[in-house]
């Protein structure tokens, strides 16, 4: 009997044929470019291409930038999400819009805006340069800043959404038992939204890894200092397509591995 019940449930829960066809089309959007990449991969030259210095430099910078952006986002983005979800203040919807802005604005525009703000003649950049001699554009810090700008919204919206769906009674219970605000935050709130927090961090990292437009506009492009993987791919496309394809392949392998492994770990599929 239980077998039959499972059978019935499986049949009724399966989407209609049209949905399956559309789903396949949806999948094709992701798979087709990958097939194109694999078809152009110079497999026999690959080991040689992967050991080129430009590849190692770009890989190192990409890891620094994407992990740096994720760390900064965790430190300032989670508090921002907490404030947005829990503090009622005038103009909250405007602030929420500002946080989402990097998702809508083309990254190149974001990079230009960063340059106008933090560049050597920028609103903030000029006093900073005069006081400290620090120039953010064309430095690895510039890459981290540009990447954070583009990637942090993913963390803020994910965490804010989770906080708003959280049943406030758990936190209330903890507080009524004498827990202070920090303790509630550390022992109740954050553990309860841990899956969303992890998902947000993962999305942020993934977006940061692929960042191109804001980085090249704000931080420039110099091997070993600001040239991340996407920039290296772009530059290699101009002169040396085999290296460009090899670089792209590394990016795909790294991101796919991380996304698949971590996803399985945090949201195991049955």
């Amino acid at each position, binding site marked *: 009997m239980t077998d039959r019940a499972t059978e019935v449930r499986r049949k009724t829960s399966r989407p209609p044929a049209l949905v399956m066809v559309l789903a396949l089309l949806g999948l094709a959007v992701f798979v087709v470019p990958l097939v194109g990449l694999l078809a152009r991969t110079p497999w026999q030259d690959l080991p040689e291409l992967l050991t080129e210095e430009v590849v190692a430099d770009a890989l190192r910078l990409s890891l620094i930038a994407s992990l740096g952006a994720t760390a900064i986002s965790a430190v300032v983005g989670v508090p921002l999400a907490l404030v947005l979800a829990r503090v009622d203040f005038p103009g909250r919807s405007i602030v929420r819009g500002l946080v989402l802005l990097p998702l809508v604005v083309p990254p190149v525009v974001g990079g*230009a805006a960063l*340059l*106008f703000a933090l*560049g*050597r*003649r920028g609103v903030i950049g000029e006093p900073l340069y005069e006081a400290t001699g620090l*120039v953010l*554009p*064309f430095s690895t810090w510039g890459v981290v800043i540009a990447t954070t700008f583009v990637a942090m919204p993913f963390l803020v919206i994910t965490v804010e959404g989770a906080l708003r769906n959280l049943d406030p009674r758990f936190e209330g219970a903890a507080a009524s038992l004498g827990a202070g605000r920090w303790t509630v935050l550390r022992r109740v709130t954050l553990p309860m939204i841990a899956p969303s927090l992890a998902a947000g961090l993962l999305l942020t990292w993934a977006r940061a890894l692929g960042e191109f437009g804001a980085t*090249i*506009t704000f931080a*420039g*492009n*110099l091997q070993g*200092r*600001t040239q991340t993987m996407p920039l290296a791919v*772009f*530059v290699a*496309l*101009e*002169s*040396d*397509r085999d290296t460009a394809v090899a670089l792209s392949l590394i990016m795909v392998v790294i991101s796919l591995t991380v996304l698949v492994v971590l996803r399985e770990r945090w949201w195991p599929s049955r």
Partner: protein
Amino acid sequence: MAPAGGRRRRGQLPRAALPAFLVLALVAAACDSGGTTAESVILVSAAASLTDAFAEIEGAFEAANPEADVVLNLGGSSVLREQILEGAPADVFASADIANMDRVVVGGAASQPQVFATNRLEIAVPLDNPGGVTELADLADESLLVGLCASGVPCGDFAQAVLDQAGVTAAVDTFEPNARALLTKIESGDLDAGMVYVTDVAASESVAGVEIPEGANVTAAYPIAPTTGGANTEGAAAFVAFVLSAEGQTILARHGFGAP
């Protein structure tokens, strides 16, 4: 017209989403069909350094041929080359160097290129020249922020050739994807100096040019050719002829380009 949301089941989508999508789609479709017919569109893939000159040529050509609609696709010559070789639609290719044009011709995607203009390099600096740049050798100064075009992009390859010839190893802080991107960062004062085309300096109000001596400079030749896979061969031929005509040449000269 039937209401767009008629068949929508309640509660399945945010209420406004589907009608809004349909309206957007209709607007897009209307824009598409409301314009000119496909035959009269001439797609011109032109090097970024031709931006201003070709905008003016576009206007003059359309004034002379009211049925034609020139659409400019501007970018680094090497990016355009890849696009055309990969089969992106284009009727005309105008490159900032012979090398990229040759690769398109060898790839069978364009034929019979003709040089229609020449250009030279110059050092561009912000108007107040904060780095005090006066000659090529200054680009080797580590304390200055110096930009060049990336290798593979014509202005980058030419700049490297000029520097090699002068025996200068530039202390480069960024390799920009094209001349315009490089110029923008010099205009904003974020870079102290960069090597761009004479025409770029002429077009910008916020940079000054530091001339490179005649003997140390290189001459960049700009070739133009109709593509072989273009949808509008007639229009392509007419546009190429116009660029090479006295009127086209006058416009190019006004923007600082040299004669072929």
